[in-house]
């Protein structure tokens, strides 16, 4: 700011003007912002056509977070010289802070400030444009929690807009119930979730995802008996869904139906080879159905895929017990040791 000010003063500077400029700068440097504001106000009075004078005054108020008083001098500065990016940024921020998102947007556009522009667009109700700007900003600062917060809000707004459209469409009620059910499930409101999902299912039995969500709901309650028919129905509706086949197999396994479980889990493994959760359950089902070779292969594959995970611990435990049963003591001891070491390292 200082070079701009001095350059502007070069033709019109007076001793009094210089005195107030220097006093203002010193006060600001010393952190005495009210004094700096007084001095720069005097500068504005002495040189009202100088954009830099208004910028300095506005920036002091901006520093003081007095956005209302910062607005007028910054506006005046930009009337005198529209090509001041810093002033645009400050004015945009001041306007946004006062709730004038629409007014703030052109200033952020001129200043090329993606994150603030995204926020302003979001607050102005332009969620789709906001997503673009916030995604661009996120490329520069991938883990920024504020950006992630606003971006999730933007997507949430988009989702809500679409949901509102869906509600008004003829025949949209089933999907509305499905969405409400899934949202309630995610929020842990299980009773509500079940009500909405059942309502959706009563209207249409052919929609993928509803049975799955119900199955997940019952699974979270530990209710395998009620989860099993839901996953069975989902697997029928979506025969190429590996995750539906896995969940169906998992339910069967816990209900003491290892042969059926092995079949379904094997199918899940074919649809999505190497999924560790599937391999663990498949291995258990194969042990229970007397197929130690297949079980060993499944557990070994899991360990290859995820050698340091909790699932790998389970695979080592299963292998140690399988080998013990097969009288392969050395192998059993090796797996037990691997389990112990992995548990220690993961603590």
């Amino acid at each position: 700011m200082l070079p701009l000010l001095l350059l502007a003063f070069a033709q019109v500077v007076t001793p009094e003007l210089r005195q107030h400029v220097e006093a203002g700068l010193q006060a600001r440097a010393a952190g005495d912002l009210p004094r700096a504001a007084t001095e720069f106000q005097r500068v504005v009075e002495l040189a009202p056509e100088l954009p830099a004078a208004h910028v300095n005054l506005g920036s002091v108020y901006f520093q003081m977070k007095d956005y209302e008083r910062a607005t007028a001098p910054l506006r005046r500065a930009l009337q005198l010289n529209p090509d001041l990016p810093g002033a645009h940024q400050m004015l945009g921020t001041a306007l946004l802070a006062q709730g004038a998102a629409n007014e703030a947007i052109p200033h952020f556009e001129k200043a090329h400030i993606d994150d603030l522009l995204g926020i302003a667009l979001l607050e102005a109700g332009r969620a789709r444009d906001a997503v673009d700007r916030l995604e661009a900003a996120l490329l520069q600062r991938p883990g920024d929690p504020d950006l992630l917060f606003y971006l999730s809000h933007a997507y949430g707004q988009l989702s809500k807009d679409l949901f509102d459209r869906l509600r008004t469409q003829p025949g949209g009620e089933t999907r509305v119930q499905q969405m409400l059910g899934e949202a309630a499930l995610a929020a842990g409101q299980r009773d509500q979730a079940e009500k909405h999902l059942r309502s959706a299912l009563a209207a249409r039995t052919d929609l993928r995802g509803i049975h799955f969500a119900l199955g997940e709901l019952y699974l979270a309650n530990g209710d395998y008996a009620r989860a099993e028919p839901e996953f069975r129905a989902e697997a029928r509706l979506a025969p190429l869904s590996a995750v539906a086949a896995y969940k169906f197999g998992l339910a069967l396994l816990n209900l003491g139906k290892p042969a059926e479980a092995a079949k379904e889990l094997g199918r899940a493994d074919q649809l999505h080879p190497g999924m560790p959760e599937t391999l663990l359950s498949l291995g258990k089902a194969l042990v229970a159905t007397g197929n130690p070779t297949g079980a060993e292969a499944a557990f070994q594959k899991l360990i290859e895929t995820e050698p340091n995970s909790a699932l790998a611990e389970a695979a080592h435990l299963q292998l140690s017990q399988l080998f013990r049963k097969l009288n392969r003591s050395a192998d059993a001891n090796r797996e037990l040791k691997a389990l112990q070491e992995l548990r220690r390292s993961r603590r």
Partner: protein
Amino acid sequence: MGGGIALLDYDGDGRLDIFVVNGGKLHDPVRLPPDFRRYDPAFANRLYRQLPDGSFQDSTARAGLLNSPNIYGMGAAVADIDNDGHPDLYVTGYGGSVLYRNNGNGTFTATAEASVPGWSVSAAFLDYDNDGLLDLFVARYLDWDLGRNILCGTPFHSYCRPDKFNGVANVLFHNEGGGRFRDVSQSAGIASAIGKGMGVAVADYDADGFPDIFAANDGIEQFLFHNERNGTFTERALEAGVALSDDARSFAGMGAAFGDYDNDGRPDLIVTNLATEKFALYRNEGEGRFLYASLTTALAGLTSRHSGWGVGIHDFDNDGYKDIFASQSHVLDNVERIHSGLRYLEPPALYRGSPDGKFRAFDLGLPAVAGRGATFGDLNNDGKLDAVVSVLGGSPLVLLNRSARPGVTLRLVGRRANRDGAGAVVRAGSQTVFASSSGSYLSASDARVHLSGSPATIEITWPGGRKQTEKLPPGPSVTILEKE
């Protein structure tokens, strides 16, 4: 927690009586010093004497048990510690434990023997060195006191998870005779395992002639103390396959019991857990190893919604296949607010065994309660195993078995072995039962053993390995003396 309960014929009239452990009053869980108001009769433990008509009479005062020490009561264990024919009583709790000697005249005397500091929970009597005197194992829960209490739960307060607290060692006492006990936890190797104990069960799982100890732990690996036959124990749960679930996860291990659910002659093991964890059933494969059997027996799917505490593996319907009985209730009384799919109050459950090796739920038609301890015994000496469930904040449930099939209740009287016959194994055809009043959760069961049907001949293996074959007289209740 809390909710200890025991069955014992304390007055020798041939009818089982019921002892109920009360916790105490906690006005303010963070106020010190703790005063559990055990001096108030309303918070005393209770002894209910069974009358000839099957009803029960409060005999607490008459038996000299009204004045409870200032501990928050937890569990109970029962054994004839001095082989005088009168069952003695051990009561655990937060703040200490007490051994009550049975005076043989319907009264008890509190002693300072086998006192355990801290927070003792389940306890079990066993003759670990086969010297004919029953020793005592006491599980302890956490290293916690009121001065270091912390609050957990958002937005609703709930009990903190056990991983917020340090564990503590369990305690083993050797019975020195004459009613005296010596703490051998260090020399026996018990003290080297730091746990978060809950239920305790005893059986000779590897058939080497010496009883072993399973101690359920809350939230960490379970303990299986293998008896090394020289007065020491080695913790072998992981090697034996009972430390973890089949997913290699620790669980809330609460109640525990041994029993031969598959009639192969070996003691299998069940551990009750919190909802969504499934009860863990371990099949004894022989050679000292177990396999997780909750999946193959369908027990996983049956129990995964439930939170179990007291538990027993017995043939309740006398059909030749062992069943599993469990008292149930979530540990959090506000669990519905935290997880709307779970319930705090639950009815006790019976999972019936069947020829195909799978369990099936059987609706007992009981109310949903906060069940904790569960004890099993033949209350009316009809050869059918009854159950008593303790209920937090409510009356116990006394459940008389109405099954149609016959059974027989055997009272074993040891002479060289301990008088209770604890540790004896009884075989009749495909049935094998293990004599022990231990197991379940905070509870002590009828020391007698139960067989289904009307077996003509039985084989008893007494502690130490001596075998005895007996022809059984007809009738639902039989006493068998150990041959000298």
